[in-house]
């Protein structure tokens, strides 16, 4: 039984004063997330990730299509008791304490009163907010609010959690903790569906990812499979100021500064460049993989597919 089955959900917003113009936020989306996996939903800002999550949460209504969550119609209230949701950049009732807030959410999720107390303490401990009892949320930093957000999403021990940009606003330490938490959830047999625009987060965690851009699904699968189709870049640094013509011919981007040459080339030409440098007796200092953010990665991928299309035409 898949945890989530998205069957052609699509969303078109009417915009403008008279609602005459339409803006397509999401093209028909088909997607299946298996039970017990960590699934990354990748795409640059404005790609339709949040729209998809809102559709699944029943916060916006689809123009067409449907979905099944945990083997129920997605709008079924039964589903809601078994899922947790962390919105993007969460913000909560200013005048409550974290403890009161979680208590309230526990009530709404139907957690029995006896378990609620225990569970709230447990979760606050889990997200590292044990020591802020009695402090109202308006005094919380962005990172602390993010932790509260994660806490409320896992409070009622849901089978499936949706995190929208869970790492945003967190320091490196916090990111690490969130990663650990997601892995822990997976260990407990939960399914995690999270969106991000940061490739490395997905790489480190996900079993599978889906990539969306401009409201359309551009790829789905294990992260290595996807990135193999589009080559990454490496930066190669050698001593001296000589740039062999054969390297230039490979289309490298070259910067010379002092007695260092830095060349940025496609990953698959790395061996060829090493061979050339060896032949030319240049001293290679470093080979550094260039980590691109998902956004630049995409721009690159799109630029390439467009130029290819241009050439064939």
């Amino acid at each position, binding site marked *: 039984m898949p945890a989530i089955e998205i069957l052609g959900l699509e969303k078109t917003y009417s915009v403008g004063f008279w609602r005459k113009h339409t803006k397509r936020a999401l093209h028909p989306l088909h997607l299946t997330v298996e039970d017990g996996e960590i699934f990354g939903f990748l795409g640059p800002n404005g790609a339709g990730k949040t729209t998809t999550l809102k559709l699944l949460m*029943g*916060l916006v209504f689809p123009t067409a299509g449907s979905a099944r969550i945990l083997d129920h119609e997605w709008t079924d209230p039964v589903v*809601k008791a078994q899922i947790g949701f962390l*919105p993007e950049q*969460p*913000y*909560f009732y200013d*005048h409550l304490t974290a403890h009161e807030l979680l208590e309230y959410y526990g009530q*709404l*999720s139907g957690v029995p009163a006896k378990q609620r107390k225990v569970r709230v303490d447990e979760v606050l401990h889990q997200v590292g907010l044990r020591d802020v009892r009695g402090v109202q949320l308006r005094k919380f930093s962005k990172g602390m609010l993010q932790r509260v957000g994660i806490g409320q999403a896992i409070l009622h021990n849901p089978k499936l959690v949706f995190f929208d940009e869970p790492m945003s606003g967190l320091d490196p330490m916090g990111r690490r903790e969130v990663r650990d938490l997601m892995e822990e959830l997976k260990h407990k047999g939960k399914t995690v569906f999270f969106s991000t625009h940061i490739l490395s987060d997905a790489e480190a965690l996900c079993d599978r990812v889906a990539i969306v851009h401009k409201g359309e699904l551009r790829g789905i699968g294990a992260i290595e499979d996807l990135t193999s189709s589009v080559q990454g870049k490496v930066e190669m640094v050698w001593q001296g100021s000589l740039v062999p013509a054969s390297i230039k011919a490979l289309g490298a981007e070259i910067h010379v500064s002092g007695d260092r040459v830095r060349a940025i080339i496609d990953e698959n030409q790395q061996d060829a460049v090493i061979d050339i440098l060896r032949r030319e007796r240049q001293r290679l200092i470093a080979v550094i993989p260039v980590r691109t953010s998902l956004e630049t990665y995409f721009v690159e991928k799109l630029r390439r597919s467009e130029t290819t299309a241009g050439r064939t035409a």
Partner: protein
Amino acid sequence: MKGRIAYIASNTFREAVRDRVLYNLIAFALLLSGAAILVGQISIEIEKLVVINLGLTAVSLFGVVIAIFIGIGLVSKEIEKRTLYTVLSRPVRRWEFIVGKFFGLAGTLVVNTFFMAVGVFGALFYVSHKFVRADALILVALYFIILEFLIICSLSLLFSSFSSPLLSAVFAFSLFVIGSFAEDLRNFAGMAHGISRWLATGAAYLVPNFSAFNVISSIAHEQPVASQLVVQNTLYALFYATMALSGAVLIFERRDLK
């Protein structure tokens, strides 16, 4: 269902109380005690009249301002701050949210009115040193004021369910003003002819009618209030609030929370 509505209501109440309702009580207390002491020194004849008029008018105006300014933020603020997302992704129906919010706000206003009423009676005792039977009429006026609040609450929720806070405030406040002159509006309608008369009469029945709720000045003169009026006002407030709430639910059920 009942439980969830109650939880939402009590959370709304708690938010409102911690937010700014208390400041209003302080302002009210200062105003009333200041006025009571002042009139106590100036006039002997009409001091009671002034305290009742001033006190009840202040209760009503403070309450209306609170009802509108908290009411309009109830839904739109939750959307803006995205707190609504974490509520509606739980087993909470949208209508339960609206109804819960309404009761929370209504509760806030009732409690607030209670404290202000204590203030009014206190000031009254200060100027007249005793209570008489006719003072019980003030309770009727307070009851009507609360009924009025219920209507305003439901209207601000209605506007809040589809409009921005600023526009909602403008709408709700204009309806409060129009509602205070609803009887005159119907007089205007009566003087029109043809289609405009029908339209004006329709509009006059659609806007809230607060003229029957304002008994402050007659109570200050110790005029009794017909028991029939109490029943009718109660029914009217209940029906009107139900109407506005149903409208809010209808709109909110369909709304995309962008």
